[in-house]
């Protein structure tokens, strides 16, 4: 019984850390890692859905059926989810790399500002101007390491 409480705590803990990481970080790589943690938490939760203490793998070896078998369905699902998760993490990192090469920053806030400027530029929208307008906002610093 203790094991399962620990495991559930771990799963929810991972989910919580993941969400907190996504919400609180500004550095892209940290956010991507946080997504990885979040996924790990969700996967663990799925495994725990039919957790049986002391069960053995659901494999029949030599015609001997184990007394207590683990449910194979969540394991298959988790396996797939892990594969997908790794793929998405790789894709995210490669996109982050591209963005870093192009704009020289991994700071989410800087990326957002830059993104908005580029969209406006591409669309041909000039920022609203007025004689009374305050001075234009300085563009976000572009550091090699990112703004973390």
């Amino acid at each position, binding site marked *: 019984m203790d094991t399962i409480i620990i495991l559930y705590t771990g799963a929810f803990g991972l989910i919580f850390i993941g*969400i907190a990481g*996504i*919400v609180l970080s*500004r550095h892209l790589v940290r956010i991507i890692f946080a997504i990885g943690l979040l996924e790990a938490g969700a996967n663990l939760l799925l495994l725990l859905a039919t957790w049986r203490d002391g069960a053995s793998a659901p494999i029949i070896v030599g015609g001997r059926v184990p007394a207590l078998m683990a449910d194979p369905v969540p394991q298959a699902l988790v396996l797939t989810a892990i594969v997908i998760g790794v793929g998405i993490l790789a894709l995210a990192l490669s996109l982050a790399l591209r963005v870093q090469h192009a704009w020289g920053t991994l700071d*989410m*806030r800087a990326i*957002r500002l830059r993104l*908005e400027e580029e969209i406006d530029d591409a669309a041909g929208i000039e920022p609203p101007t007025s004689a009374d307008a305050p001075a234009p906002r300085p563009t976000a610093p572009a550091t090699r390491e990112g703004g973390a």
Partner: protein
Amino acid sequence: MTPLDQLLLLSALTVVVPLFTGNRRITGPLATLLYTGQGLLLLRMAGLGYGSETPVSSAVSLQVLGLELHWRFDALSWFFALITIGAGLLSSWFASGEWAQRYRDSGSSLRLFHAALALNVFTMLVLLASGELLSLFIGWELVSWASFLMMSLGSNTALRYAMRYVTYAFAGAMAVLMGLVLVYTRTGSFEFQAFRDAVPSMDADTVWLLFGLFAAGFGVKMALLPFHLWQAKAYAETPGPGAAFLGAISSRMGLFAMIVVLVQIIGVARLVELPVPFTFLSGRDLLAWVAVFTIIFPTFTALRQHDARRLLAWHGIGQGGYMLLGILIADDLGSAGGLMHVFNHATYQAVLFMSVTAVIHRTGTSDLNKLGGLVARMPLSFLAMLIGIIGLAGLPPMNGFVSKWLVYRALILEGSPLLFLGAVIGTLGTILSVYKLIHNTFLGQLRLEHVDIEEAPSSMLWPMMILSTVVFVTGYFPGLVLDWIASVQAAVGLPVLAHHLGGVHIDKGGLDMIWVVSVLLAGFGVGALVFLSGNRSKRVHQLDNYAGGHFLTADTRYQYSDNFYPGLMHLIGPWYRKSFRWLEGGFVSTVDTVSQLMQGLYRHTHPAFYLLAVVVFALSWVMGGD
């Protein structure tokens, strides 16, 4: 196929034909011919107008989503259709000859103009024929978009104001739709009869809500205060004959819908029972006061205009107030006045717009500060405008007098002196501004650049003369129109006005226009006799004159017509505060601020933050609710 189907079919054909004939010269006359055909088909149903026929239904009916749509014509529809087709016929005639050539040469599409005009007529007929609330709404939307098409043919200004119109009109339509759906959820049907049966059992709050939704929604089209800002410029800048058509009938569709829903179904008696909280007013009074302010404010705005078309368009808004006021009194006199004013207004407003368009056609401007003295060059156009403004001002012997007299009489008899006072103030503004209109256009000094112009072409004069004759004849013999009005009143369920050819007979002083006009004409005749028999007059040239000891030359401006009424403006000028524009601007900037906020939501660096908020909220709510 019933006569109604034939009429609608021919009307649809009128939309299609210009699309094929295109920019050729034949388009205008052909369209005019088709309108004549529509008119004849309408006359086949004339029994409706004289109350001797039961409503004509269309053979077409649709069943969509389990809702039945059907169409029919009764006396009310027939009366409005008569005005619509008449206005379409004369506008299209007006747009057939030289005007069309000029319009085409300026690079505009004649095809589009005639198609838009025919589409307006067609959609209006569809609206007038609606047999339940859903087809009423469909017709309503069609009319709105058709008039948007017409307005957007004009200048950039017209396009801008047409845009404003779309915004107002669609918001209004949404209010109407909301009302319809509310009715449907109460009664399970869109039929007029089901709605009428359900009204007595509705509580005051529901009726208030429906009243508000319908009055606001339909009021937009009528340009009732405070939804009036779009109309004047949008109408004024529409191509001339189009402006005549829109000015004559387009906004009256709002009145038609209001009569159907507020008078025929909910009933004015029910509106009188609705108290306005904290006051001694009722729902009816509230709307009546809106109508009175709709008379006063736009009329005095018209007084300040120096563009002839805008001046007329602002008056168009104001005159709508008289109609609504009359109908809200809901006795035999008042409602007859309101309904008759629809017809009368259509006739003189069309003739006025046509006459102004004729002046523009010849001089190229409608700026009242740049015209004058044209009576010597365009006497028939002058005559048309003269008859028109007498009608607009509501003076005998023209038809506008009769309808306004009926409304005033009803207000006095019913005991609403304040409303009466408001209406009279409005009339005062009308008289002042129409004098400005005719004086600055046709009287005074002829300008040097206008010395060589000619009378308007016959394609323009004919419609103007026909309309002027109608304005005069229906003023002389108002019974001709009152016959139709009486059957409309019977169809709507209002008390029917007892009348005769010359007017009405009531105990406390009736009105007999045959007498009034005959005496007036006799007076004029005597005056003319004195004038002619004295033979003391001599025709001289306008410049055969001197001032300050000097003879005048053609380039001397000895008579100024700009800055008209400076004394009056000094007096009432500070009252023009543009409050409604301010109101509209305030609303727009509120929406702007809120939407900036909403865009901010989508711009935030950490969208996940909102996600977290929602998940946490939802989960905690789930745990709490468990």
